[in-house]
């Protein structure tokens, strides 16, 4: 195992018997959160770092579950000994959000009121509700104040929400490839993804868990749409160009020549559709769409950030068109106007939105340089 890996990790489960009220009304009587931790919590519990995951993410952010695991956690590029989120200094906590499908209470969990899976009846959380649940987890772990809360994309929205909702419980907020709210174009892509799922006959109005069929076609299509928007034109051009699949590998029924990008997307879609729950996908995209940082503050993002007491690092990627650098600049400008300490870098990268997951040299360097100031 390489020296920069957190090694073999195992998820843990925290059970909360206290009800959690969602912003939009419904209440979860009790719930479980699955999470992983990397590094050691120090005696004063001052070195806790919370990782907030993005749309299809989960608690397994770093290391491997077994020596045979083919792939490490989704943010292994950034978490580990000697990496920006250095586990020799920090106690890193990564959880699966409520409504997820990787172990935390969600649509595939049993609804105690009916004795069957929640399915489409699982209450729709907002980003703020996730943050409230994360605060419960912090209490459970004995962490009064995070050294840093860090997230990319939808995770960045959670990190910002932390800074407003629990200003005294967060010292540094790191917001990567995010926005204070989605644009119409962004919501449109999410709606296409949702339509793909909802129009799959196997979706069965969300009650597919009662039968044996799953809306895998719809979920695969949703993922394909999403995947295209996470990559840049240049990244796809350099990776696939107009190369054709070799004969014999093509799946097209009429055996017409097939571009490599087609089979790649189909592979991504089909992999995802067997590993992810359709109701969770709907719920996560809706939470993403509905997030609006400034809305509770009279639609004034500067006023919103005046609630924050922490320092900020904002990062964006040059070819990210789903969460473009301009959206990150809006965050930075609002923080400056609110007189909050902020650093910002726009990382030149060809990989589009996906860049935030990748080991890009300058990204890691800036990330690492910033985290040096985080005292523990």
């Amino acid at each position: 195992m390489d020296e920069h890996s957190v090694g073999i990790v195992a998820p843990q489960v925290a059970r909360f018997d206290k009800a959690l009220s969602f912003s939009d009304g419904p209440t979860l009587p009790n719930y479980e959160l699955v999470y992983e931790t990397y590094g050691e919590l120090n005696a004063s519990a001052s070195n806790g770092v919370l990782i907030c995951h993005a749309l299809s993410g989960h608690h397994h952010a770093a290391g491997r579950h077994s020596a045979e695991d083919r792939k490490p956690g989704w943010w292994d590029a950034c978490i580990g000994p000697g990496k920006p989120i250095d586990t020799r200094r920090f106690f890193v906590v990564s959880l699966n959000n409520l409504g997820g499908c990787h172990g935390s209470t969600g649509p595939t969990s049993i609804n105690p009121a009916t004795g069957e899976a929640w399915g489409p009846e699982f209450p729709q959380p907002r980003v703020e509700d996730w943050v409230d649940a994360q605060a419960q987890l912090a209490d459970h772990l004995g962490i009064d104040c995070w050294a840093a809360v860090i997230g990319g994309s939808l995770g960045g929205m959670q990190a910002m929400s932390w800074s407003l909702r629990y200003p005294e419980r967060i010292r540094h907020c790191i917001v990567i490839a995010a926005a204070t709210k989605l644009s119409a174009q962004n919501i449109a892509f999410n709606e296409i993804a949702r339509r793909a799922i909802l129009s799959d006959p196997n979706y069965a109005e969300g009650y597919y868990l009662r039968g044996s069929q799953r809306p895998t076609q719809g979920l695969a299509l949703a993922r394909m749409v999403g995947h295209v928007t996470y990559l840049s034109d240049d990244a796809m051009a350099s990776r696939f160009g107009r190369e054709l699949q070799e004969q014999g590998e093509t799946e097209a029924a009429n055996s017409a020549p097939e571009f490599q990008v087609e089979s790649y997307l189909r592979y991504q879609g089909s992999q995802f559709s067997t590993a992810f729950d359709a109701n969770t996908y709907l719920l996560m995209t809706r939470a993403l769409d509905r997030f609006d940082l400034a809305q509770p503050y009279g639609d004034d993002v500067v006023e919103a950030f005046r609630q924050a007491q922490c320092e900020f690092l904002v990062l964006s990627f040059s070819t990210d068109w789903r969460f473009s650098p301009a959206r990150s600049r809006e965050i930075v400008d609002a923080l400056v106007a609110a007189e909050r300490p902020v650093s910002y870098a726009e990382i030149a990268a060809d990989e589009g939105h996906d860049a935030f997951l990748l080991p890009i040299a300058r990204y890691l360097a800036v990330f690492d340089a910033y985290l040096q100031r985080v005292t523990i």
Partner: protein
Amino acid sequence: MRQDLTHILRWIQPRARVLDLGCGNGEFLALLRKERHVQGTGIEIDEASITEAIGRGLNIIEQDLDAGLSNFPDQSFDVVVMAHALQAVHFPDQVLEEMLRIGRECVVTFPNFGHWRCRLHLSTRGRMPVSRFMPYNWYDTPNIHFCTVRDFETLCRHRGIRILGRDMIGGEQGASRFARSWPNLFATTAIYHISR
């Protein structure tokens, strides 16, 4: 530490909000933090410098001065500083106007092209000066808008910019006495404290 930076210190009040345009690796902001406990923000475009400055614990925003500063609200900083960058921007007069809009006071330093060495170099050799202070050739220099002390003060007069104070650096030890008396001829670096 560059001399001009230590000279600026006296115009910065303790705990002021300071914006440093073209802050480089954050050397000056770090000095201000230590000596004046300022709330500093730096603007920089060079990648390596940004990383270094962030690593110093400073607040640095990656931004191109030539793309404008309209994202900073009016009078949002006590002092806006630009040290040795005026000659490198596309529209120095516009940057100056923006500085004066954003800051209640501003400090600008620039190399004085009227220095006798520059004049001598140009008049005797007939070529653009290349020196220890300006080590670039004309075709690869980032310094695209050189001016003299007199040029700068003329611009201030035309634009109604108040000069609150000025200081001059003469290069070699002891030369600052000459520089203060005959700045346009003997100052290598000019330092201005200005406001609207």
